């Protein structure tokens, strides 16, 4: 407790402006050297464990074929080459359906899913967050309940419903279910709740109706949440090969074509390494670009009773 007077003298200081951040960091309360060292070591070991497979993905993509089948195996590449990527392009040009078609399919499916989801979920989130009406708590509670089980549970009946709707073997079979993704509505509603009511109230006094308020007041104020919903939706859809619903080869997404290449065996190991790199890199890059918006949205992700 000898430190106490010192702490007290620091306590009432105002929040430091950003340029003093470094000094403020050093003066953090209650931080012992031993604790710092311990946590740094734990973080280091776990960080290496987490990063190693990702490092391998990058290195394998750059390895020439003889290094992929080397004994003893090495993690780091010695003679980096882009051969694997050029092999991948050759394979892509050989494919039965032009490769650009797979890319177009992926763009249609993911963009359709993302855009529709952001619009439909935001529209539903606004009344749930800001209006009072009968049934509101019940509706939100079933969405929260849907976060508590995985989609595998509903897979078989979902397939039957999609067949009944007659949208089997169309893009809609993947796009429409994506619009009602529960996590998106949940995050959007929580984020909208923190908007001040006065914002909407003043628009109402000026005669705006609820649709105008939604479009001109609410939506511009929840941009970080749009991005988050779009990115999470993309993460869901990116890994989907669509083979359950899409039978026509020319409707299938990129993921399907890429996974066909990885299944090609020894002779295609180089191209397969390049594919693995692409599959991992795309969602990681999207996350990297939107990281701050996503974290801003997640600050309101908590579950209140």
């Amino acid at each position, binding site marked *: 407790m000898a430190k*106490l007077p010192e*702490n*007290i003298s*620091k*306590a009432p200081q105002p*929040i430091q402006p950003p340029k003093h*951040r470094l000094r403020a960091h050093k003066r953090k*309360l*209650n931080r012992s050297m031993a*604790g710092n060292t311990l*946590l740094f070591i734990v*973080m280091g070991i*776990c*960080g290496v*464990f987490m*990063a190693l*497979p*990702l490092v*391998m*993905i990058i290195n*394998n993509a750059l390895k020439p074929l003889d290094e992929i*089948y080397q*004994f003893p*195996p090495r993690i780091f590449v010695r003679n980096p080459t882009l051969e694997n990527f050029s092999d991948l392009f050759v394979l892509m040009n050989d494919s039965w359906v032009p490769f650009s078609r797979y890319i177009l399919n992926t763009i249609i499916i993911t963009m359709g899913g993302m855009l529709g989801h952001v619009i439909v979920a935001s*529209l*539903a989130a606004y*009344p749930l967050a800001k209006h009072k*009406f009968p049934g509101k708590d019940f*509706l939100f509670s*079933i969405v929260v*309940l849907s*976060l*508590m*089980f995985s989609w595998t549970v*509903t*897979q*078989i*009946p979902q397939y039957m*419903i999609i067949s009944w709707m007659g949208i089997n073997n169309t893009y809609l079979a993947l796009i429409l279910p994506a*619009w*009602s993704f529960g*996590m998106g*509505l949940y995050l959007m509603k929580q984020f909208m709740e923190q908007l001040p009511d006065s914002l909407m109230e003043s628009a*109402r006094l000026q005669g705006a*109706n609820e649709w105008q308020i*939604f479009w001109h007041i609410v939506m511009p104020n929840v941009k970080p949440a749009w991005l988050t919903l779009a990115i999470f939706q993309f993460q869901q859809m990116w890994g989907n090969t669509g083979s359950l619903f899409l039978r026509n080869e020319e409707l299938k997404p990129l993921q399907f074509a890429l996974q066909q290449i990885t299944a090609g065996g020894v002779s295609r190991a180089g191209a397969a390494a390049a594919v*693995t*790199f692409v*599959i991992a890199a795309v*969602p*990681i890059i999207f*996350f*990297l670009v939107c*990281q701050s918006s996503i*974290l801003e949205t*997640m*600050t309101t*992700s*908590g*579950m209140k009773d």
Partner: protein
Amino acid sequence: MSLTKAVHPEKYHKLPMRSVLWRNRASYLMMAPYFVLFFFFTVLPVLMSMGLSFTYFNMLEAPKFVGWNNYVKLLLDDDIFIIALKNTLLFAVITGPISYMLCLLFAWIINEFSPKIRAFLTLVFYAPSICGNAYMVWNLILTGDRYGYLNGLLLKLDILSEPILWMQTEKYIMPVLIVVQLWLSLGTGFLSFIAGLQTVDKGMYEAAAIDGVKNRWQELYFVTLPAMKPQLMFGAVMQITQSFAVADISINLAGNPSVNYAGATVVTHLLDYGSTRLDMGYASAIATILFLLMVGTNKLVQKLLRRVGE
């Protein structure tokens, strides 16, 4: 909405239902597209799954009612289901709490660093959970011959004299899958914790220091955790649901069926009956049990977490 505001709250309850619905028509219309889709793709499938679980249904003929038969067969006659259930519970009991703790621990440590390093570390820890099926890279690590990275390393260090067939040896399958699952599990819950930690009011730490909180561990227990309880609840849902749904890694690393079904989980068993054997009634019974397990566990844990700090 502007109309409802004008009515005194006590009188509001006395209005006839129809007029209440009419006053709120904008709210209901806005929610309609989402909830119609939600009904068809989430609510209805759950109800159908429950209904079909009491039938024999092969997608060709109309479902035939068989009462509790599917459940009786599952629990008394299906040895593989019992293995699958045991493995799923093992995943849930081990990876659920451990991944939850890891999310919290890493988020907490990451929070100590400066913003740039924090962003980098967040990416490193979160990336595995979003890199799609790139976890297949573990196949290279676990290859059973001398070319596998793990075998190569252990042979070089003279820990092993013979390479181990990791994914073909019954006793290694579950431990290895658990490690891979943990690697993949720092997902949405982890992000929520990172974000939650940054919202804890700095003034509370200063006040706590004055009140005699001596070190970071006490600070974590007395200040940080109570302040981020909502995020802790959300993270719990994410980690629990994820830990019950393990299937893809088992199928892609150990195969389906795996050696002696050592890597079977409730979901792999469900896929086996649902997409290979096309016994939809039976698969629906499996899905219903899984649904009850997931939701039941989530509700129970929510109840426990709600009590924290009260």
